[in-house]
């Protein structure tokens, strides 16, 4: 049943295990951070041993990765500490190797870790979504007020990946030394964080040190927040982030969810009424016509034997 609430957890408290799944070869060790018990999606800290080699290939799952320490050869590129990659499902990665070893955070978003050797992308791969960047050197820090209400000054972010449909985000964030924020927060989305360096503190869970981690389902209280000496972390949310701030440490997830719904009713009463009046069992939500509309370019594809004239249906016709 999805990923459970794992908070707080520190990967420094457990040992690496050998990754024995086929395709990954020898010299890949991992620590499990959190795991979706249905899909197998998971986040893992990975130690590639010096001399590790992986042949080109793709994963059935979308995957994100950031280098925590060390150096990896990714095809023709040498990637180092802070380098982030977004790899769509079915995207054939080049050969990967590490001469001296590397510590990496890997996140398989939609299925268990897999590596199918191939130097060609899978036919269904959304190849254009692949991107990578040196997140430490090539992106400036921005104020953390990307959403309103926002975090206090002193919490800065670098956006690494954004899903325009779900509004899911992957980002680096840091807290400056002596950062504090005196409120309790919850979100309508799940949230994940891995501390690359430094320690922060939350009133419910205490200190989250280097290697500290959480996967937190929606509507769970967290905060107040502080960091004495500062920290830098990789954060993710699986849909739109909204900060619901309050100061009641005893509210439950169901009460928090009710409050979110009440706020939606107060802000968008017409939409709320429509949603409630159409409260059938639609686990994937109502239809978005923009995602399903029949478009001209869908008819332009030819298999070399037949063709169409952008009609939405087939019929007999002749050509001179």
């Amino acid at each position: 049943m999805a990923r459970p609430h794992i908070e707080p957890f520190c990967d420094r408290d457990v040992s690496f295990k050998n990754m024995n799944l086929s395709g990954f070869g020898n010299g890949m060790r991992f620590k499990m951070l959190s795991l979706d018990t249905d899909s197998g999606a998971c986040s893992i800290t990975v130690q590639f041993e010096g001399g590790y080699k992986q042949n080109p290939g793709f994963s059935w799952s979308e995957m994100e990765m950031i280098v925590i320490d060390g150096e990896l050869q990714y095809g023709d590129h040498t990637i180092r500490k802070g380098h982030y990659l977004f790899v769509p499902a079915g995207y054939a990665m080049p050969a990967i190797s590490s001469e001296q070893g590397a510590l990496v955070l890997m996140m398989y978003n939609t299925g268990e870790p897999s590596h199918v050797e191939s130097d060609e992308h899978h036919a269904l791969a959304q190849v254009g979504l692949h991107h990578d960047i040196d997140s430490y050197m090539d992106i400036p820090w921005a104020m953390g007020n990307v959403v309103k209400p926002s975090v206090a000054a002193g919490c800065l972010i670098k956006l690494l990946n954004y899903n325009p449909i779900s509004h899911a985000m992957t980002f680096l964030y840091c807290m400056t030394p002596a950062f504090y924020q005196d409120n309790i927060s919850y979100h309508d989305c799940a949230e994940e964080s891995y501390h690359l360096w430094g320690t922060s503190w939350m009133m419910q869970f205490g200190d989250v040190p280097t290697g500290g981690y959480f996967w937190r389902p929606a509507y769970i209280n967290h905060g107040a927040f502080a960091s004495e000496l500062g920290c830098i972390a990789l954060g993710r949310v699986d849909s739109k982030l909204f900060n619901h701030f309050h100061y009641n440490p005893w509210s439950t997830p169901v009460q928090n969810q009710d409050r979110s719904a009440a706020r939606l009713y107060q802000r968008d009463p017409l939409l709320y009424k429509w949603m409630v009046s159409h409260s059938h069992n639609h686990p994937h939500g109502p239809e978005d016509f923009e995602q399903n509309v029949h478009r001209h370019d869908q008819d332009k594809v030819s298999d070399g034997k037949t063709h169409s004239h952008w009609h939405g249906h087939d019929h007999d016709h002749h050509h001179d």
Partner: protein
Amino acid sequence: MSFKNLFIKHERSAEEEAWLQEEIAEQEDRFSQIENTMEDLKPIRAQWYREFFDRISTTGFNVDGDEKMVIPRDQLPVQPDGNEDRVVWKHGVDGE
């Protein structure tokens, strides 16, 4: 929970299924340890709550960014009777 991105359907192999079951069992243990640790933290957390209430009723509560509002002491919440201090919720709203 899903990031709503692409997954390419395939058959999960017996090896992958065995790996998954082993990891699920270990995650159960990990979750239990977290629950116990957070239970042990209760007395310290109670002190942290008191300090939080003291700060938001004197220096203020962060409403939005650095905008702060002092909460009068008579507006501070009281722990409801029978409501234990709980911070770990295995599956959030689905586990309540």
